């Protein structure tokens, strides 16, 4: 009864094309954002550091990949490496120009991954489907190799790792060892909200329509005047931008440091799984998928021992990891069979039901 559009008339095309045409939706989003900020102030360090920060970062990476796979229909297996490009670019920028604020560099680093993404996206004009997926593997393995074998990228550190130096925002440390989880969380949250808003504008406008046109019927899209290479490269650029920023945030606002193998192919796959489960071509699905895939091992770690311990069986961390692989794999197949549009579609169906509740006929 509460969730209704009745009585909300749209009198202009401006109002009709809003992202959240329903008042209830707008209120809901506002409440969620407010709660997210409140969590930063009242949440425990564990909640922030182990759950919310990585959730937000993975969500952003998933949004990036969703632009490419879900909206433009170009399958990429190189997400991990593009995150790496963002992270290493950010590291180089930070250490070369320490006087500029780190948030600026995190946002700038995305442009580097965008450029690299465009380069590796060039073959997408001639090849599609599986072929393109294999081509992106070239990016994955080549870039990962670069992070390891080109010492200039990690400033010739003996350890071969990159580490977040101490930096501040408004006098509060946000990267490095002394930065509190709270400060980092608030930065991450703000950046993710801002970037999600930009992504949402993109996919709801002309560029988003062009991507979907290319995805649904590339020949027809070209025949109505969409330049395929232009649209596809734009998708690679935008996608890699978000992915790269997510990578930079991952290293500087979450891990505090990283080695080349953080950005391996498993990382690529898990982000791909997030969007398959969450819903291809859906921004809210990116958040849901990230939540499910990322929270799964945490949940398993809590739930499994609780079930098995009374029977005297101890579950090791390795077993949980194996189970996680199994469950994720099974979930992928399950969602592809039962609901190829992922959690986002289930969410929509739920809303639809709520709209007519309690009188469905």
């Amino acid at each position: 009864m509460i969730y209704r559009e009745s009585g909300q008339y749209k009198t202009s095309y401006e109002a009709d094309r809003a992202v959240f045409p329903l008042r209830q939706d707008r209120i809901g989003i506002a409440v969620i954002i407010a709660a997210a900020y409140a969590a930063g102030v009242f949440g425990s360090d564990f909640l922030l550091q182990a759950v919310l920060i990585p959730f937000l970062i993975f969500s952003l990476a998933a949004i990036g990949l969703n632009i490419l796979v879900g909206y433009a229909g170009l399958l990429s297996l190189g997400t991990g490496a593009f995150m790496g490009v963002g992270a290493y670019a950010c590291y180089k920028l930070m250490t070369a120009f320490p006087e500029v604020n780190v948030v600026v560099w995190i946002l700038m680093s995305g442009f580097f991954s965008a450029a690299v993404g465009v380069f590796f996206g060039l073959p997408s004009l001639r090849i599609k489907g599986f072929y393109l997926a294999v081509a992106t593997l070239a990016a994955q393995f080549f870039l990962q190799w670069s992070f390891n074998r080109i010492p200039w990228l990690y400033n010739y550190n003996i350890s071969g790792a990159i580490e977040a130096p101490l930096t501040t925002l408004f006098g509060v440390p946000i990267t490095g060892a002394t930065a509190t989880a709270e400060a980092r969380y608030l930065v991450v949250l703000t950046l993710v909200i801002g970037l999600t808003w930009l992504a949402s504008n993109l996919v709801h406008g002309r560029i988003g329509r062009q991507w979907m046109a290319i995805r649904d019927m590339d020949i027809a899209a070209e025949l109505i005047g969409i330049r395929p290479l232009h649209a596809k490269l734009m998708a690679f650029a935008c996608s890699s931008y978000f992915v790269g920023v997510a990578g930079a945030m991952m290293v500087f606002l979450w891990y505090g440091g990283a080695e080349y193998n953080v950005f391996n192919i498993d990382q690529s796959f898990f982000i791909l799984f997030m969007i398959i489960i969450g819903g291809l071509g859906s921004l809210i699905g990116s958040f849901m998928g990230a939540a499910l895939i990322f929270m799964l091992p945490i949940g398993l770690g809590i739930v499994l021992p609780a079930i098995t311990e009374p029977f005297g069986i101890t579950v090791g961390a390795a077993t949980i990891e194996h189970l996680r692989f199994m469950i994720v794999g099974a979930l992928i197949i399950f969602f592809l069979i039962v609901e190829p549009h992922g959690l986002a579609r289930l969410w929509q169906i739920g809303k639809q039901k709520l709209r007519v509740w309690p009188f469905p006929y």
Partner: protein
Amino acid sequence: MNANTTVERVAAPQAAPVAQGGAAVVARPDAAAREVLLAVENVSLGFGGVKALTDVSFDIRKGEIRAIIGPNGAGKTSMLNCINGFYHPTEGRITFKGETRQKMRPHEAAAGGIARTFQNVALFKGMSTLDNIMTGRSLKMRANLFWQLVRFGPATREEVEHRRKVEDIIDFLQIPHIRKTPVGKLPYGLQKRVELGRALAMEPELLLLDEPMAGMNLEEKEDMSRFILDVNQEFGTTIALIEHDTGVVMDLSDRVVVLEYGRKIADGTPDEVKANQAVIDAYLGVPH
């Protein structure tokens, strides 16, 4: 049996649905005298050893409705594909608006003012009717990436302005009730209509229709014929159409070109084509 029916239809176009609906248009005698919009000269097209088109020449004049007919596999769709740059003729040339081109990409053809619908509906299945038609406006939208990112200023103004145009098309095609429906869920006849809408959104000078009435029932065919005539008369759009329903073709078009096995066998007004012995042979078959 089939061949017989066809001949009857060729011989008796007045029995065609459009004529019954009272929408018959007398072929305008001046069609042949107008300015040439598109000229196809000696075009041949081959794929490896297979020749899809051999030495075909014809022209399309401003403001006319030009039909391309012929039996299955005659090369009609290949011809349209050549015109809008999806295939490149192996020989010959195509001149559009006085410009001859060797290799033109489809999006360049679109920018030049050629729009197209497809034999098997080629809509963007994941998008709504509105978005499908809006996509047809892509070429006319200019707001840059920055404004689109912030969804403000020029981007919004542009969206609204084009939305208005798109709504006009939606009204014209009488499909406002399916504005927000994903096109994948629409029945076939409506999908064809949306596809026409998408092509119209491009405000083309030349509209290519590949079997706009295939698989439609009588009523839908009448509607579609009406839309085609309206587009031609109200917007002055030049139309080239492929259609199997000979009755419809004879009623709608000003001039007809007939292809068989990739060759042109006849060209002229519907009445001339109807009387042409080669055409009758092509449709009926010749005893060997």
